[in-house]
């Protein structure tokens, strides 16, 4: 019987000594943020059901620290858009994204959120990246819970490697302006 192989997540680069681990503040804060994501489940359709399965005991997204779901954008880190977004819903998604506090990430779950899916029609927004900047796309119709967890793990990698100053940078500001989000300062 083979030993089960557990893939362990490597610690960030740093200097270690007995009882001490020294690393940069960026990496420390990134580690803390990545392992305590508070997602905002913007579940619209079938992918929302797969998300329910992901949060349930069998697949358990809570293992990764994402146990506390927030339906208010003020307290959420990760906007998970799961399901078909109609064109009428698009400004609402954008406003919810805008009202999240930095740092914030967006996960587009499913084919409909990524590109409109099979709904090539007058009423469906062809991908939420027409209204909000998306960090990770999870394709599938619907994606299996393992794939959603894989997407969240990729978000975790992004979070761990993000610098503390990224949200104050002019690149981020111009990224938001590209989506029509106008800063007032």
């Amino acid at each position, binding site marked *: 019987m083979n030993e089960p192989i557990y893939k362990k997540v490597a610690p960030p680069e740093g200097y270690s000594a007995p009882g001490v681990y020294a690393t940069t503040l960026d990496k420390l804060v990134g580690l803390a943020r990545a392992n305590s994501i508070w997602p905002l489940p913007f579940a619209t359709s079938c992918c929302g059901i797969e998300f329910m399965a992901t949060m349930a005991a069998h697949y358990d997204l809570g293992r990764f620290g994402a146990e506390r779901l927030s339906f208010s954008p003020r307290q959420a880190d990760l906007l998970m858009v799961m399901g078909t977004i109609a*064109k*009428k819903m698009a400004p609402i998604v954008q406003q919810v994204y805008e009202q999240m506090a930095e740092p914030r990430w967006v996960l587009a779950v499913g084919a409909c959120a990524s*590109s*409109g899916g099979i709904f*090539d029609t*007058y*009423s469906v927004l*062809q991908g939420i990246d027409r209204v909000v900047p998306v960090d990770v796309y999870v394709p599938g119709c619907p994606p299996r819970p393992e794939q959603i967890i894989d997407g969240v793990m990729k978000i975790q990698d992004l979070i761990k490697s993000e610098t503390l100053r990224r949200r104050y940078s002019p690149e981020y500001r111009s990224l938001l302006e590209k989506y029509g989000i106008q800063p007032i300062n």
Partner: protein
Amino acid sequence: MSNEEVLKQFLEKFDASDLHASESFDMLTITLNTGRIHDAIKFLRNDLGFGFLTDICGIHYPDAEKQLGVIYHLHNLQENIRIRLKTFVTIANPNVPTVTDLFAGANWMERETFDFYGIIFDGHPNLKRILNVDYLDYYPLRKEYPLEDPTREDKEDHFFGR
């Protein structure tokens, strides 16, 4: 009451000219012109007991003379009889009187029919788009468009093998 009795009582009140009655799948279907449709529904509701408006929908027959149609489905809950009323209008003059004064539920149903077919309901309190975005400048369910719009920017063609 059976369908025949309903039709008999209906024809006592309404002149049979310019009226077409048939029965499809056990449901009585009466086609009227637009001027009489409001009185017909009022008569059915008040005198014959058809107090439940199941649906108002629209339809577009591109090959007919009067292309746009409005179809009303009424239901007599006491005696379990359903009836369908149809009325047809032209695209140039798509005006139909509203039945919101008879059935409050007709409000949103007529808005939906307006949204998708462009049929104007005279006397409607709030006739504006209900399911589509407000800036949509065409009526989607009319059969006026080719199946794939070459000027559409939504989907990128090379992803779909076109």
